C-alpha cells in the first residue's frame, strides 16, 4: 500500500451488482498516485466503466471504499466532484446546443462565470481546434470534434484528476493519434489521469502504470515493462493448419513440453502458444516435435512479450477472445441502453 497522501485515487474492495443480477465489480482495488497516468485495461464487460462511475460519484458501490483527492466518494461526493473532470465513454455533450454553449454551461455548474469563464472557454476551443465550429450546434460536429469537445468539457474547471473512459473507442487512427498526443501533454503538466481502455496498445503507450481487470477484479498491476518482464522470455506462436480435436490436445502439449527451455504451453483452437527463453532458437525444435506428432503447421511467429501475453498469463485467455465473449453481453446491454 502506498501512503495515502501521495494517492490521487484509492479504491478498496469495490463490489457492485446491478439490479438485474450482473456483478460488474467483484472486489476491485486500485491505487493511483498523484501526477501519474494510470490505465485500467480489460475487455468490454470487465467492469472498468462501473469502476469509473463509482469513482466519479455517479454510481454507488454495494460495498468497498473509495477516496479521490482525499475525499470519500460516498461521504463527500460534492467535494470529490469539484476536483475531478470526466470524459465518459459516450459523449455527454448536448447535440442541440453549440460547442461554446456546452462549455459555458459546464463552467457555470462549477460556479465559474464572467470574463474568466469566457476566456477559459475560448482558450479550450482554441486548444482543441474547435474555434471555428464554436458557434455551431454540436450535432453537426464530426466524431473526432465531438470527442475533443468531450475532453474540453472535462477540463473547463481545471480538475486535479481526469477520468477518461474509453477515450478513443470508435475514433479513426488519425484522430486517435491526436488524442493520444493531447493526453500526453496533459500528463506532462502534472494532471493525474485515470483512463480505461480495451486497446492494449493504448495502455502500453499512455499509461505509467496499468491494472489488468477481468470479471470485476484486478488480476495484475504494475508498469507495462515490469509486467512484461515478469513473463521472462519470448512468446512462440504456432498456427496450425486445422484445429486440434480435444483428444489430440494433451498429446501435442506433451511433445512440446518435453522440449528443453519451453514452458507455459497453451492450446487454443488452431493456435499453440508457448514461452521460451530464446524464441528463435526454440522454433526448429518446436516444428520438429509437431512434425513428429503429425500436426501440419501453417505459420510460426516469435515475439517479444506484449501486454496481450501478460493478459493471457493472468487471465488464461487471449484479449481478443475475452472481447468476443463480452461482445455478446455488450450487445444485449446496448439494447437496454446500459453501458458498463
Amino acid at each position: 500500500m502506498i501512503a495515502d497522501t501521495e494517492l490521487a485515487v484509492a479504491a478498496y474492495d469495490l463490489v457492485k451488482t446491478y439490479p438485474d443480477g450482473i456483478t460488474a465489480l467483484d472486489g476491485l482495488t486500485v491505487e493511483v498516485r498523484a501526477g501519474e497516468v494510470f490505465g485500467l485495461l480489460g475487455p468490454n464487460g470487465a467492469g472498468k466503466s462501473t469502476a469509473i462511475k463509482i469513482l466519479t460519484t455517479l454510481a454507488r458501490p454495494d460495498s468497498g471504499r473509495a477516496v479521490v483527492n482525499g475525499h470519500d466518494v460516498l461521504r463527500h461526493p460534492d467535494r470529490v466532484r469539484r476536483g475531478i473532470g470526466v470524459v465518459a465513454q459516450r459523449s455527454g455533450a448536448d447535440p442541440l446546443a453549440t460547442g461554446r454553449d456546452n462549455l459555458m454551461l459546464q463552467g457555470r455548474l462549477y460556479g465559474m462565470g464572467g470574463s474568466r469563464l469566457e476566456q477559459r472557454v475560448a482558450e479550450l476551443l482554441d486548444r482543441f481546434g474547435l474555434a471555428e465550429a464554436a458557434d455551431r450546434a454540436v450535432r453537426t460536429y464530426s466524431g473526432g470534434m465531438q470527442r475533443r469537445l468531450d475532453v474540453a468539457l472535462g477540463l473547463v474547471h481545471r480538475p486535479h484528476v481526469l477520468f477518461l473512459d474509453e477515450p478513443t473507442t470508435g475514433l479513426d487512427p488519425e484522430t486517435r493519434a491526436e488524442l493520444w498526443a493531447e493526453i500526453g501533454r496533459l500528463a506532462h503538466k502534472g494532471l493525474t489521469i485515470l483512463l480505461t481502455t480495451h486497446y492494449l496498445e493504448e495502455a502500453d503507450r499512455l499509461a505509467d502504470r496499468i491494472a489488468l481487470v477481468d470479471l470485476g477484479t484486478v488480476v495484475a498491476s504494475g508498469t507495462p515493462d515490469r509486467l512484461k518482464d515478469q513473463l521472462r522470455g519470448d512468446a512462440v506462436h504456432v498456427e496450425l493448419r486445422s484445429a486440434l480435436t480435444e483428444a489430440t490436445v494433451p498429446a501435442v502439449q506433451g511433445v512440446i513440453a518435453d522440449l528443453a527451455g519451453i514452458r507455459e504451453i497453451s492450446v487454443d483452437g488452431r493456435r499453440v502458444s508457448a514461452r521460451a527463453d530464446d524464441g528463435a532458437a526454440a522454433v526448429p525444435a518446436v516444428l520438429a516435435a509437431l512434425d513428429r506428432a503429425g500436426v501440419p503447421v501453417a505459420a510460426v511467429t516469435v515475439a517479444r512479450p506484449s501486454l496481450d501475453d501478460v493478459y493471457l498469463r493472468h487471465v488464461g485467455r487471449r484479449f481478443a477472445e475475452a472481447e468476443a465473449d463480452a461482445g455478446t453481453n455488450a450487445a444485449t446491454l446496448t439494447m437496454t441502453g446500459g453501458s458498463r
Partner: protein
Amino acid sequence: MTATLTQTWWMTHRQLKALVRQAAYVVITLVQPVVWLLLFGSLFRRIVELPGFGTGSYLDYLVPGVVVMNAVSSNMWTGMGVLEDIERGITNRFLITPVSRGAIMSASVITAGISTALQSVIIVLLGWAAGAHYPGGVGGVTMLVITSVLLGTVFSAMSNAVGMTLRQRETIIGLSVFLLLPLTFLSSAFMAPTLMPGWMRDVATLNPVNWALDAARGALSASPDWAAAFGYAGLLLGLAVLMVWLSTRTFRGYQKAV
C-alpha cells in the same frame, strides 16, 4: 441556496434556448387544442340550452376546459426530454458536476411551466378571437394561466419521475393515453357539474384537473369567487410541490441502476 438558484437559472436557460430553437413545435402542439376549441365548440354549441347548465355561451364555458386539458396533455410529454438527456449521456455528465439534483429537475419543470403559460395565453386569445368572453377580466385570465401552469407542473414532474425511473418511451406514451381523457371527462372541462351523473361529480371533486377548473372558473366569472379560487389554487400548489419533490427523489434510484 443561492448556488442552487443560480444553477437552476442556467439549467433552465439551456432548456429555454432549446425551446426557442423548436418554437415551431410549441405552435404545432396547439393544433389539438384549437381543434377542440373550434370543432367541439361548434358541435356542442347548443348544449348550454339544457336546463341547469348555468351559462349562455358554450364557447365561454369551453375555453378554460381546453386550456386545462392542453396543460395536462402537453406536460405529460416532459419526461421524453428527461429520457433524451439520459440516453445522450447529458444527465450523467451533469450528475458528475456539483450541480444540485433539484436544479436539474426544476429546470425541466420551469421550462415546461413557461411553455404552458405561453400556450394557455395563446388559447385564451384564440378563444377571444372566436368570440369568447371573459367576464372576470385580466384577473380571471391570470388565475386561469396560473392554475394551468400549476396543474401542468403536477404532470410534468410526474412524467419526469416516470422517465427517470422506468426509462421507457412507451410508458410515458401509455400513461398519457391512459390518464388524459379520463381526467378530462371526469371534470367540469366540457360539461357543467350539475348535469353530471352523481358518481362522476363525486370523483371530480378529487380530480386535480377539476380543482384547476374550479379555481379558474371561479375567478373568470362576472362576480369572482376569489376565496374558492385561491383555495383550489393552493391545493394545486401543494400537489405540484409534492410531485416535484418526489421527482427529485428519483435520482437516488437512478444512481443505483446506473
